[in-house]
């Protein structure tokens, strides 16, 4: 007769022992992975390169982010990160409705620019209803209006050695003993010249609100929200990202997010 059959009591005892054993195995065992210089972490981070190449291969240069209808705009755009910069420079500009604000385009360009809001708004514009995906997991649909970034780059005439566009922002996102850190971020020229990459000054049919990045924010629609800096005042064309911040190409990238925020 089947001697593999076991009594119900033995089964339940064994089962509860197994479950409590699993529950006791807490997970601070893997906290060493938080160390940015840990070899295992660096090995795991190697997969980010694969993720990046796979996305570039599948999405290509020109595939467009989904666009939605007016009916999909069901709420104000959810703000995140800094929502009211308390930097004196910013507050001064805000008190004057950004009349003295300028967007400087500098670095590896033939013709450095300094554009007022009126000058940007006089350029051809693009309006798109897109879904903003935050790295935290939430999404929000809004309508964005702005200048295609490619037009600004063409006006400044990008030098051939330029590789990346760096966005310098007016908001201080971190104050620590080592000083203040202003938000910054970067994308490469493929995404900078993507038809949906715009320098947005309008949102949901009105001027861009302060909490969403007034007077100017970037929209990079095929990537996550942390790749779309707010309160932008300077665009710098560079051939590498090592010299800025901690060298990873952005405030959040310096704190462990992938440089390519496509997933």
């Amino acid at each position, binding site marked *: 007769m089947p001697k593999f059959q076991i009594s119900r009591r033995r089964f339940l005892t064994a089962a509860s022992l197994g479950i409590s054993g699993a529950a006791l195995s*807490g997970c601070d065992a893997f906290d060493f992975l938080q160390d940015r210089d840990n070899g295992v972490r660096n090995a795991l981070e190697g997969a980010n390169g694969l993720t990046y190449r796979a996305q570039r291969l599948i999405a290509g240069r020109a595939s467009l982010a989904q666009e939605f209808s007016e009916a999909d705009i069901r709420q104000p755009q959810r703000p995140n990160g800094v929502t009211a910069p308390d930097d004196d420079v910013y507050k001064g500009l805000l008190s004057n409705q950004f009349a003295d604000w300028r967007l400087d385009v500098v670095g590896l360009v033939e013709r450095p620019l300094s554009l007022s809001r009126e000058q940007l708004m006089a350029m051809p514009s693009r309006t798109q209803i897109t879904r903003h*995906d935050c790295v*935290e997991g939430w999404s929000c*649909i809004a309508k964005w209006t702005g200048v295609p970034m490619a037009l600004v780059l063409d006006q400044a005439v990008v030098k051939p050695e330029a590789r990346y566009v760096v966005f310098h922002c007016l908001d201080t996102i971190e104050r620590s003993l080592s000083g203040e850190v202003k938000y910054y971020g970067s994308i490469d020229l493929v995404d900078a010249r993507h038809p949906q990459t715009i320098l947005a000054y309008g949102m949901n049919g009105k001027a861009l609100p302060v909490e969403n990045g007034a007077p100017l924010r970037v929209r990079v629609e095929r990537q996550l929200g942390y790749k779309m800096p707010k309160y932008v005042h300077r665009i710098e064309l560079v051939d590498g990202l090592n010299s800025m911040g901690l060298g990873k190409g952005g405030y959040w990238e310096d704190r462990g997010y992938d440089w390519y925020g496509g*997933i």
Partner: protein
Amino acid sequence: MESQSRIVQQSDGHPVPTSNRPESELVYRQTRWTRLTHWVWALSLFFLLLSGLQIFNAHPALYIGKQSGFQFDNDVLVIGSDYSSNGPIGYTELLGKRFNTTGILGLSGPIDNLDARAFPAWATIPSGQDLATGRVVHFFFAWALSATLLAWLVASALSGHLRRDLVPRADDIRRLPRDIADHARLKFHHSRDYNTLQKLAYGGVLFVLLPLMILTGLAMSPSMNAAIPFLADMLGGRQTARTIHFVAMALLVGFFIVHMLMILAAGPINELRSIITGWYRTDPSERGNSDKGSA
């Protein structure tokens, strides 16, 4: 007992003629590829689960639709913390019904240092809140799982493993009621072949849940959304895809628990040996049928 056993190589799946004496036999049940992929998946799913809960904690709410309702109501699950007359509590709101889950969900940790977080520290990698590290771990093991699953699917389809061992046959379906009754009574038959419930469970995980995990994961990616917009649309929008990703996770955890219970109930030494070494001891055959465990 070893002395009574004979070793029968049966890796090609064909029954080997045996004598009519009731002896238990060691059969080679799991090929090295089955064993290797099994453990890669087990390891990957462990890290994917705990890093996934870390990622979920960054925004512990699930929605139905394209976007998250902040000013309208489309959430199906919210985990949070709140103040009650008895102090802080952790709660879980499922389909609008609120449950007090203090200690596990919403509020957890040592009693003198409670932490407002959705899943507790022991259930996430890393233990503290660190979305960046959670994402690094998650995407690494997502590659490990997807690559081995794809390789296994192709190899198993070519080798006939899928057809021979995993796809339920007509007589499997016929045996289903008896199989359910046997499992309910913790009565197990040890034979080389999987029983009907095993085929349904393993097939459900490998052909349904894991591919669904990969697809819903890709549907959350804005770059994949640009490349293959129909994927998120087909799944009901990015936020629905995220919700399905979470539900499929819960089903996989459910599978894992049942899997562990069944191993304990069916004889953990024998079961573990077969998934480590490949060799499995079958029941002594009654009436000389060695190909199917019957009783």
